């Protein structure tokens, strides 16, 4: 019987909600790791743009879920792509 109550507690979503107001987000997987990427090409504009904001900034890891290793490679690729004008340094909307 004791085992049953334990299980019930775990399953009750209300109780969990009371304890903690914010539920932890499901951990995002690094998209480069999923595809087993070993090198990020600076010429691959489309792929790079996915990891940039529309203002031209590099999106932080906490938002995209990219792992540290791939984020470093990504940052280099973005900076190179900026030099040859494939992606912007900044995009100004209001002047």
């Amino acid at each position, binding site marked *: 019987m004791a085992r049953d109550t334990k299980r019930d507690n775990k399953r009750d979503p209300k109780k969990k909600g009371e304890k903690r107001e914010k539920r932890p987000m499901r951990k995002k997987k690094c*998209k480069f790791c*999923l*595809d087993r990427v070993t*090198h990020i*090409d*600076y*010429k691959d*504009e*489309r*792929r790079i743009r*996915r990891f940039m904001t529309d203002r031209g900034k590099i999106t932080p890891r906490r938002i995209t879920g990219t792992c540290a290793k791939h984020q470093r490679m990504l940052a280099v690729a973005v900076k*190179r792509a*900026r*030099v*040859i*004008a*494939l*992606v*912007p*340094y900044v995009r100004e909307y209001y002047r």
Partner: protein
Amino acid sequence: MRSYECAVILHPAVSDDGLRTSTAKYVELIAKGGGEITKVETWGKRRLSYEIMKQPEGHYFFYRFRGANSVIDELGRQLRIDESVLRHLIVCDETAEGNEPSLDPATVEPTMRHPEREREEEHRGERY
């Protein structure tokens, strides 16, 4: 010898003839310094993400080659002198294995690529 990749953006006003002589010039320059060209690629005239020297467009060229660092120095120097070059970037090519066949510098023709058109096919079903 290391493998390098050199990206060059040429002025949009350069004629077809001018593009050909420019390619030949840099190919020869690399070959003369003892470098081996493995690939020359062009993306044609393409819109720039931001204006460079007031130009909204440019001709994209990519040279892949192996060579000593003296080649890089000379190539970079020439690219900086050349007024039809809006921008250039020379980076170490990490994807190269170092055993790609080298092309004959006298007959090298740039291969045309259209990344925009390829995208649809290439990236279908990908997570990006």
